């Protein structure tokens, strides 16, 4: 039954992610007093990319982009079929690593520079993602998602520091300002188009598709903090908060300028250390 839910969510995730991405672009335009694109715009972009001729730089790039896609899908499946949360995070990391390698495989200088920055971004996010998993563990004494969602108290009550830390690294995962140093949704930036500079046509469509899965995955991470007792109320609160957080991310994207990588590292690591690390310390002392 749970395994079936995992497969079902693999079908739902891209649609939900694309709609969320469309809403993001629409809200962003409205925040700038523009009319903005239709909400279905991500689907049009996706279709356009499938219709274009692809310039495949080398065979490896194509393989790595497929890997990038499949490991995000695996991550979604792991979470929704109630398996190990840590495994989902490792799968997500592997997927980002693959995109990074795809960018390195091309000889374009912008592609290579963005790949270096992507590595830096991973250095910023990984400690926090792992601490999130530990936060869930300290709340429910299990890394299994099925146990996390059926714990009697929602994780937000025992691990608010992890939640705050996750919110800080969320712009990195969603490729939004102020931490969009390696690639951005807004095409005009100093890195041309970041890690996807040398990816075109159908391969680019696959990257877009993966992006939708990633958006959905990030919403799931946020929502998991509010699930308790396997109850409908918990899930509904989780969904509502995830949507609210997405709106806040759109606002952040519009309000903040892009920071340099030194600043990004300082901000993310200090919040990880203070908020999540402090939370971890308190929880361990209380439970000891």
């Amino acid at each position, binding site marked *: 039954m749970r395994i079936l839910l995992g497969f079902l969510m693999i079908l739902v995730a891209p649609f939900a992610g694309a709609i969320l991405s469309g809403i993001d*672009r629409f809200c962003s*335009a409205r925040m*700038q*007093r*523009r*009319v*903005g*694109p*239709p909400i279905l*715009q991500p*689907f*049009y*972009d996706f*279709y*356009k990319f499938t*219709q*274009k*001729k*692809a*310039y495949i730089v080398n065979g490896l790039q194509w393989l790595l982009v497929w890997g990038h896609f499949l490991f995000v899908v695996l991550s979604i499946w792991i979470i929704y079929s109630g398996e190990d949360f840590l495994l989902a995070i490792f799968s997500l990391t592997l997927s980002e690593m693959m995109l990074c390698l795809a960018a390195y495989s091309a000889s374009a200088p912008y592609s290579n520079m963005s790949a270096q920055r992507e590595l830096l971004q991973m250095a910023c996010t990984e400690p926090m993602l792992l601490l999130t998993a530990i936060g869930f563990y300290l709340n429910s004494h299990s890394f299994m998602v099925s146990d996390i969602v059926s714990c009697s108290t929602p994780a937000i009550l025992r691990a608010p520091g992890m939640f705050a830390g996750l919110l800080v690294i969320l712009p990195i995962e969603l490729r939004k300002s102020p931490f969009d140093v390696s690639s951005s949704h807004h*095409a*005009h*930036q100093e890195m*041309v*188009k970041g890690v*996807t*500079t*040398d*990816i*075109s*046509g159908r391969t*680019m469509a696959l990257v877009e598709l993966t992006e939708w899965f990633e958006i959905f995955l990030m919403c799931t991470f946020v929502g998991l903090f509010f699930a308790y007792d396997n109850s409908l109320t918990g899930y509904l609160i989780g969904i509502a908060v995830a949507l609210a957080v997405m709106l806040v991310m759109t606002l952040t994207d519009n309000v903040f300028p892009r920071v340099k990588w030194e600043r990004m590292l300082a901000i993310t690591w200090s919040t990880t250390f203070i908020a999540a690390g402090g939370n971890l310390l308190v929880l361990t002392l209380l439970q000891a």
Partner: protein
Amino acid sequence: MKMTKSPWVLHYDGSSCNGCDIEVLASTTPRYDLERFGIINTGDPKHADVFLITGGINFQNRMVVQQLYSQMPDPKVVVAVGICACDGGVFKDCYNILGGVDKVIPVDIYVPGCAARPESIIEGVVKALDILKKKRDRMKQGLPPEEKGWAIANIRDGKALAAQEARINAQLKMEDEAREARYRAHEEAHKE
């Protein structure tokens, strides 16, 4: 679903006075808002569908324009914005100007004006989308995207190519002579 609902634009400024350049950027502002048509101003030729060029072609940027054009995946359209991009404009007789964009790559839509207004630029891009769709349909039938093989050698029975070559060679010869003269002057200055 139509492919033309998501045209991404690559903007290149040749040797213009930057007037049209500013107008192109103005059409992305809230007042004109290109994005409501799904148009995104991208910096990456590999993601672009519409090549928007302002300003004429000179000896230095002709290679750049040709390279950007060759990096864009098919189907693609070219829009020449402003009278300089259409045929050289007021710079037409300058020693370094080859002329309009069509001297080096095939142009699908000409948007005249000095400077071209944002309204006409947007209309030009939207018109170009019909051509983009036609090219896509041709590609689906296994035909080349362009209706006839465009090459500068085919224009005016090869006279256009000959004239361009002659101008480029004259320019190179002039530069060589100037360099040699400078060298000789330098040598003489050192003798004394």
